[in-house]
């Protein structure tokens, strides 16, 4: 695997089992570039945190090897890995002041006093907590604790920082603000960040690349746009953003496009992303905001649907329709002041482009 040389982190055929019966992580191969912000995204129990713990050294890999700057680290204890880590509940030492917390990694490295103070000052200023050095963690708000945790993970200049759902305990507004701050710190310091979360907004906002985990396997590893625009399978399409599913059967396959016959008999043209041959089952994935309630001629797919429910949301109107037997079919209509004459109980023709709907693997 010489082509992968130079990666900051490399997982090579890593497997992990806790009980010797089931694999929590199944054959993970992942390269993380120097300076990259990579997010591991997935539902709980998908194996993302386990991967992070293996990287930090708190869980041994059952099989395979993890490399840090091309050095295998399976037998390196956590304290010698030199990886900064931000924990879910911050894990700030409650019996030490903020400054003492920050001094801890410097003291165990035997750094002299003046250098310690210089770095603590710099780190606290970076997170805009310059005046809080003598406080105890319990005297800080959640957001401030979060910043101290970030500062502590960075104060000893690690090349790699791991973050385990660091914003999970904050309220929504603070969480959004911290996302930008972490993003800016990452950009200005150029450290490699591996970030674990189950919140897709967080993942899309901050990351260079996102690894979507499910069932111990990376389902897709892409930049945020690709994740949303070009999901590789039904799980990713469903997990990231809002998504309409229509199941059917491949009727014709023509290079990158295919004709899908839905269960009610109507036929749709879709991008063939992840389908078998003609006759195999498939699920069509379609974003609600790509559907027009007044279709134009350029839109290859036009179907009839029954308007079941209208929900007024200010900037857009959510229309729940029954299309091809699926009564959870959502259409988002942007509120531009036009009156589309939408009414509940109305049969209506809707349409979308073939490139906006993806034929993916079948889900039951």
């Amino acid at each position, binding site marked *: 695997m010489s082509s992968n040389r130079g990666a900051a982190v490399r997982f090579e055929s890593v497997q992990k089992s806790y009980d010797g019966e089931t694999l929590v992580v199944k054959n993970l191969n992942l390269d993380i570039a120097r300076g990259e912000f990579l997010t591991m995204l997935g539902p709980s129990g998908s194996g993302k945190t386990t991967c992070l713990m293996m990287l*930090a050294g708190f869980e041994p890999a059952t099989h395979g090897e993890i490399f840090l700057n091309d050095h295998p680290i399976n037998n390196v204890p956590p*304290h*010698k890995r030199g990886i900064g*880590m931000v924990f879910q509940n911050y*894990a700030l*030492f409650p*019996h030490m002041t903020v400054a003492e917390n920050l001094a*801890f990694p410097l003291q*165990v490295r035997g750094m002299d006093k003046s250098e310690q103070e210089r770095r603590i000052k710099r780190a606290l200023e970076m997170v805009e907590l310059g005046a809080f050095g003598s406080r105890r963690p319990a005297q800080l708000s959640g957001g401030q604790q979060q910043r101290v945790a970030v500062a502590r993970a960075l104060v*000893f200049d690690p090349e790699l920082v791991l973050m385990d759902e660091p914003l999970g305990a904050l309220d929504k507004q603070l969480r959004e603000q911290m996302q930008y701050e972490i993003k800016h710190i990452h950009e200005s310091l150029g450290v490699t960040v591996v970030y674990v979360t189950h919140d897709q907004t967080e993942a899309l906002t901050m990351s260079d690349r996102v690894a979507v985990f499910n069932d111990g396997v990376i389902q897709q590893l892409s930049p945020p746009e690709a994740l949303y625009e070009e999901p590789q399978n039904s799980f990713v399409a469903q997990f990231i953003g809002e998504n309409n599913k229509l199941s059917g059967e491949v009727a014709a396959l023509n290079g990158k496009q295919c004709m899908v016959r839905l269960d009610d008999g109507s036929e749709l043209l879709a991008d063939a992303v992840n389908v078998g041959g003609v006759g195999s089952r498939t699920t069509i994935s379609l974003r609600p905001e790509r559907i027009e309630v007044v279709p134009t001629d350029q839109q290859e797919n036009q179907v009839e649907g029954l308007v079941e429910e209208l929900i007024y949301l200010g900037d857009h109107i959510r229309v729940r329709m029954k299309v091809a037997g699926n009564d959870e079919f959502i259409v988002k209509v942007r509120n531009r002041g036009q009156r589309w004459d939408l009414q509940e109980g109305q049969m209506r023709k809707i349409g979308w482009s073939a490139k906006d709907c993806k034929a993916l693997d079948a889900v039951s």
Partner: protein
Amino acid sequence: MSSTTTTQTGLPSDGVMRAADGTPLKRSLARALRREKLRSFLLILPLLAFITITFIAPIADMLFRSVENGMVEETIPRTVEALKSWDATSGELPDEAVFEAFHADFVEAFKNKTHTRLGLRLNYEQPGMSGLFRKSGRRATNLEPPYKEGFIDIDEDWGALETWQVIKRASPPLTDGYFLAAVDAERTADGIQMKPEKERIYLFLFWRTLFLSIVITLSCLVLGYPIAYLLANLPLRTSNVLMILVLLPFWTSLLVRTSAWKVLLQQQGVINDTLVWIGLIDDAHRLTMINNQTGTIIAMTHILLPFMILPLFSVMKTISPSYVRAAKSLGANDWTAFWRVYFPQSVPGIGAGAILVFILAIGYYITPELVGGTSGIFISNRIAYHISTSLNWGLAAALGAILLGLVMLLFYVYDRIVGIDNVKLG
């Protein structure tokens, strides 16, 4: 509407907030809360009464006994009155009036059979008094004047200056005699002095009780800390099973456990036999592990260990493993992570466990009695002796009061050093 005019700030013009009916808000609130308070008080009333009757009152009574001295005045009131005019330091015996009063008292005391009790009481002040009173008995009641010669004729100790000094000294209704005795001091004609070296016992016993309690607390800590750590960090299912093993001693009688140590530790016991059999020691040099301090320390450490483990465990349970992980990720090795991050957070548990074990140990009675021999007994054994054998309750009460004061003093010192709010049981 309300008749009081309201200013713009919402406060009425007279500065008193009022409820809708015009009563001041504070009084209105107090009335509303009174029912609540009364209810809470009624809820704790049964327990309060129980504790007052069975705990507070006996302790108060016991503490009072350590200074109470009504017996002399009750038994020989006329003598006490007559002795008031006698100067104990004059070097002369009291005059005939005192002896006459004493005779009258003695006749009455003999009739009521209280004269031996008085002798016993005075014996605490000066050995020999008990015998003197018993010996005088019926003969003293048959005396004719002059009484002075009569008494001296019965026993020449009645003519000794010391005898009367003791009686006069013991006359006041309150005495510090028990407390002096409890710290190995006595009041002589020359003031308060320490007892002769070979008669001192209590100060040494107090010191030994403190010392052994500290040793037992420390050994409980050393043995209990790793166990508590293990219990707090194992998966719940495993730790529950192990917790039963920790609690098992609680379900076994204290006497059984102490006796078990007797079987194990004695010279012909299991441990010595095993050591001899292995060949570590030879038959002539079997270890003495019981009826001495070693026995007391071993048995009491075993008995008090759960009291150390439980508070430690409950505190450790609350220390998230992510702290140690954080420390390690920051570059600390296992020891540094433990010592600088885990240990300081477990200190409240150590404080709670140590206080609990120490206070239990300092007042322990039955185990030292059974396995302590003479070199391993505690001050409480001596208190028990005075309560049940020598019947010197005053001295027992004084010893108990000192022990209580000592524990409170240590508690205070501990509060100043560690801080009592730094103690938690989970």
